[in-house]
């Protein structure tokens, strides 16, 4: 008799990595994912640097936006593609090297066990992860947690943590309209609206000079809130 729920292999787990001008670090980020046997989907979001060339030597699924749209749009494209390819689990992973490939196994466990549809990474569940966060960034994130709570009605321990895992059925119900960084709040909103079961899972975010230089600023935060409010007016 055929097993109805065939075991999920690493190959069925599609790790979606949006990359915009990450030529410096993208290979380093992708190698551990490829070694672990995951199906890696890189969405080059119209990079103007050598990101595209660096990908040519890697065993990955390679997609390219001809123009730059933003991280949210790149993730949605990656999810559409992964679902077409028959992905069973989808993971959102940053290309700048701040997420750890080793965390994925733990992140997807709640979905494998059938306890959750979506798992959201959080850097504030374990003291050793929270300790990694620079003090100014920590303050910024605490405020963002409150703003997100107000805007989405869901209270998480972390905000704008791009490390997430979704079951295929959950991913097919998510439709990111926010092309920019506001997608991180939008996805929480949709999780609530679609009544998806979610849990948080501790992850380690590695802060380097590189990620800090590329990180989000206060000005970005203002833009995100504006995007979310305008979205309410113009559906």
């Amino acid at each position, binding site marked *: 008799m055929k097993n109805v729920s065939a075991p999920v292999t690493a190959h069925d787990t599609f790790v979606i990595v949006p990359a915009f001008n990450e030529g410096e670090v993208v290979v380093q980020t992708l190698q551990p994912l*490829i070694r672990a046997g995951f199906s890696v989907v890189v*969405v080059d979001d119209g990079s103007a640097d050598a990101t595209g060339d660096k990908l*040519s030597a*890697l*065993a*990955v*699924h*390679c*997609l*390219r*936006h*001809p*123009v730059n*749209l933003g991280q949210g*749009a790149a993730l*949605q*494209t990656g999810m*559409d*593609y992964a679902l*077409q390819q028959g992905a069973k689990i989808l993971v959102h992973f940053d290309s700048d090297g701040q997420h750890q490939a080793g965390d994925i196994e733990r992140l997807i466990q709640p979905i494998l066990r059938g306890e959750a549809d979506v798992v959201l990474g959080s850097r504030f569940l374990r003291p050793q992860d929270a300790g990694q966060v620079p003090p100014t960034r920590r303050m910024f994130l605490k405020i963002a947690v409150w703003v997100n709570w107000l805007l989405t009605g869901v209270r998480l321990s972390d905000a704008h943590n791009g490390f997430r895992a979704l079951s295929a059925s959950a991913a097919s119900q998510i439709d990111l*309209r926010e*092309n920019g960084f506001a997608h991180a709040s939008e996805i929480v909103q949709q999780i609530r609206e679609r009544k998806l079961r979610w849990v948080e899972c501790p992850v380690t975010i590695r802060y380097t000079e590189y990620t800090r230089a590329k990180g989000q600023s206060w000005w970005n935060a203002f833009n995100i809130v504006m995007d979310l409010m*305008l979205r309410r007016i*113009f559906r």
Partner: protein
Amino acid sequence: MRIIQFLLILIFALTVIAYFRRWRSRLRDRALVIVFALAGSAFVLFPGVTARLAALTGVGRGVDFVIYLAMAGLAFFCFLLYAQQRETDRKLTELTRVIALTTAQERVKS
């Protein structure tokens, strides 16, 4: 007719023509544009009307009344443009996504 009256009416007329030719839009938008242009022209031809309306609404001078109306009108058109821009963004996203999906390449380990 004073020169300024002629100029302003000309501008209103050109706005309407430009609007219709460049942004094909819904009836509602068009109706609003016509109302704005007609009201504007009427105010230009009969300046006394604005003074009376201003007195009625407690604004003061007729010119102020027109300026306030114009500001509201401008704000409306800004929103209209913004809505159109979001629509254009959405289409661009869809198009880009289709291109990315149809040109996707899978590289296997060599």
